């Protein structure tokens, strides 16, 4: 499995730089002094106990959450409160959510073409071709005319991935994409994500799928209480964790 990861190239070009980033919910200090540099082509898995701020961290990257201190630079654009900047970054960064968040009033195809048509001003026909291309990639082109409510959870999550890909993002964020799925559907979603990784997509995944982390990630980050506790290559991270907090966490989730 390890050779899988080495096949995938990481370039020297920097995709995301986060430095000295702090965030508070009211008076609660959620993220503390986060420093993180992500190179293009990296597949990073972020894990940690619930409430450790992993979701908040990746939601800060596309400004779904506001940070109060420090800086985040995505693709050379500095995240500020300027709405134009935010919309630009959001259109470059795709995101998949735990609960898919497909638009229930639109068909699968319309879900996929909406943003390209309105944000990128792509002609409708071209947008539909792109959408069908990505729907084929996630292996559900035959559901294009159905509504999200008619699909299974795994299919919905794959549509959500295709919807993000239709914007041709340079970075993909995954916020616990398999946590709301049945075990047999987890595999079909993970397969899609692995394929995406093999094509060299820059990915940040919050997930508890440690098998996926071993197979795909080139770096695993462990977070606790709003800070990055440990980060390492998957082999070293799983076989030889350094901090006691990481050891405890790994023993708990790998123990059974």
């Amino acid at each position, binding site marked *: 499995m390890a050779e899988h990861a080495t096949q995938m190239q990481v370039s020297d070009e920097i995709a995301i730089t986060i430095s000295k980033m702090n965030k508070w919910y009211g008076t609660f200090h959620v993220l503390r002094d986060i420093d993180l540099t992500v190179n293009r082509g990296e597949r990073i898995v972020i894990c940690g106990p619930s409430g450790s701020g992993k979701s908040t961290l990746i939601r800060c990257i596309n400004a779904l959450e506001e940070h109060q201190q420090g800086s985040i630079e995505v693709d050379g654009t500095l995240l500020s409160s300027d*709405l134009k900047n935010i919309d630009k970054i959001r259109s470059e960064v795709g995101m998949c959510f735990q609960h898919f968040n497909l638009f229930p009033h639109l068909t699968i195809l319309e879900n996929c073409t909406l943003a390209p048509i309105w944000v990128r001003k792509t002609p409708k026909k071209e947008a539909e071709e792109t959408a069908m291309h990505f729907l084929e990639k996630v292996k559900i082109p035959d559901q294009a005319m159905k509504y999200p409510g008619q699909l299974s959870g795994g299919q919905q999550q794959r549509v959500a991935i295709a919807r993000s890909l239709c914007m041709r993002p340079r970075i993909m964020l995954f916020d616990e994409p398999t946590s709301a799925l049945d075990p047999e559907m987890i595999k079909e979603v993970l397969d899609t994500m692995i394929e995406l990784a093999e094509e060299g997509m820059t990915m940040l995944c919050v997930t508890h799928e440690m098998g996926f982390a071993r197979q795909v990630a080139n770096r695993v980050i462990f977070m606790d209480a709003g800070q990055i506790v440990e980060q390492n290559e998957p082999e070293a991270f799983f076989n030889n964790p350094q901090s006691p907090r990481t050891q405890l966490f790994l023993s708990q989730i790998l123990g059974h």
Partner: protein
Amino acid sequence: MSDTHAQTVAFVRETEIPEAAPPYAATGPVKWMRENLFATPANALLTVVAAYAIYLILAPTLPWILNGVWTANSLAECREILQGATGACFAVLTERWPQLLFGFKYPSELYWRPSLAFVLLFVAVAPVLFFDLPRKLLIFTGLFPFIAYYLIWGGTIFVPILALVGCLGGYAVYQRFVTGSFAAGFFGGIAAALLIWYIGGLLIPDGASENAMLTPVPSRDLGGFMLNMMLGVTCVSLSIPIGIALALGRQSSMPLIKVVCVVFIEFIRGVPLITLLFVASVMLAYFFPPDSTVDLFLRVVIMITMFSAAYIAEVIRGGLAALPKGQYEAADSLGLDYPQAMRLIILPQALKISIPGIVNVAVGLFKDTVLVSVISMFDLLGMIRGPILASTEWNGVYWELLGFASLLFFVVCYGISQYSQWLERRLATDHR
């Protein structure tokens, strides 16, 4: 399959039993009656009681309706024809028909104008209500308010044309500047429209209305059910967009907009409609410059629209609150800006949830238009209470007149409610 089991099981059927017809009592009307009317002794008893109640109601009313007199010139004449037998005096409806529909001052030779506007209303509303119709029809919907104004009020054609030009000019300015900033587009558009109306107002020659092609009819001559329809249609169609704007404003992260919307909604909801109507008829004049004469109809429209917009805003706020936060986040994460996210993702879903509530307000608003009779406008109820019941010929024909008014309102409101149910089914795509 039967081969393998034939030796191990005790009995194997080789032939099929022919299909038999169900017993008589298990099908048809008998089955229906058994299940629905006489399922249990208590059920049977209730059925009998209900049948008796229906009989009690119909026994006097049916002859009253069927025996009704349709042609007579006064109540006295009706009674003469009936000669003591039970019977309604529907003659009042036929004799006062135009008054019930158009009021008593609208010139009778001009009845064709509001009637034509009424027919065109259906053409204009159709593409809005049934979105399978070709979208090009919406152009007529856009023109309809100006056509209807011209038909009903008459006067010089320059007024509706000027109004239309002002709207188009404002829209052009809005389109030009909205890409830069929404506020610039919005206020620029309003300013441009006002400017065009002001300059255009100076250009229209003074006596233009007197020798116009369509004889002008002043607002105080409008009346009857026409007035209810006009108020209902105008106020519903104005209050839905205003209600949406208020609901979104109430959610805004900008404190000023939020405060303005909250204060407006809470204030208007806290005041009875009748009070607002009295304000419109009596007091609003104090707020305008001394020599300006803002039409009473316009004042009433403003008040009713504000009133129902506040209610609709709260209904839509409920719809907005019912949407999961993930929908906002998904729209944001795809890079849609605020107007796009609202128009394409949030409002279609929130409005769908709000349909029953909006229809509830719309039906209520339509019925509330009869309240204008209190401020001496002669709508359907105003006509019945005033000129018709007060006349010597028809003094005392309450049942027939008020029954007719109820029937008219019922037909319209039931139609609205049926449409909304169809719309909900049509929009049901969530397959829950």
